[in-house]
């Protein structure tokens, strides 16, 4: 999976480092699944609406020159049947804005009752010049 910074995150990072933002960094990020590409420049994040689906909190870890966003497994338990392609990290459990996103290499179908797991380390993002 390619993990990317959404414009909101890039802007926030630049605002923090140049002293332009009085806001604190997000206190938590929540993983969400999309049936379409999560690319904010695309058609838009189409969040799943299947049974038992809800965004899940993500444990964050920091590396010296990269960002590991998921340091523990993230589990979406006992879902209704569906398909997901994109993964997004939002700053709110139900609303908020997209900070990081990534797409699987291909869409994944799952049956009713399955648990979708984003394994630790699956999503990570860094910066380049």
């Amino acid at each position: 999976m390619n993990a990317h910074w959404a414009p909101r995150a890039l802007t926030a990072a630049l605002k923090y480092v140049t002293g332009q933002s009085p806001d604190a960094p997000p206190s938590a990020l929540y993983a969400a699944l999309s049936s379409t590409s999560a690319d904010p420049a695309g058609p838009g994040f189409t969040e799943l609406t299947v049974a038992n689906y809800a965004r899940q909190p993500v444990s964050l870890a920091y590396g010296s020159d990269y960002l590991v966003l998921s340091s523990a497994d993230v589990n979406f338990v006992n879902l209704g049947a569906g398909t997901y392609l994109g993964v997004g990290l939002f700053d709110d459990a139900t609303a908020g804005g997209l900070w990081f996103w990534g797409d699987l290499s291909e869409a994944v179908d799952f049956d009713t009752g399955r648990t979708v797991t984003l394994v630790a380390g699956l999503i990570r993002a860094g910066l380049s010049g």
Partner: protein
Amino acid sequence: MASRVTDWGAGRLVAILLGQAGAPTEFWVALASDEPGTGIDGDILADLEPAVAAGYGRVSIATGTGAWSDPTDAAFSTTVVPVSFGVPSADWGQISYYALCTAETSGEVYCYGEFDVPAVITATFEAVIPAGALSLQAASLDTTIVPA
């Protein structure tokens, strides 16, 4: 005007974003004759800077909206004030690059950039970087991860 974050700078932005490092209150602007590169630090950078004996020294620029443009929708922020290095006491030679550092000497480097037009700095003329000529920008680094 385009700039690149260094390896250290990329990690620092991430740490600041996660609240694991404090944001700086100032940057020290350095001038360089050659491209610093992403692995640079403040000590190595010194080899590319004009000589202190020629009247050169890094110049502090504050953070905040009074000095930096809003990066919203731009993915970069530029200076909105000029940065003066004073009048050299001897020639500095050609200056093609700048860097934003953590300290007046040594330290670390957040980013570096290339001037649109290199300048040959000679003695007795004030060296000034005009507003808008320095930028701090970053881009998302693609990291391909194979699920376990």
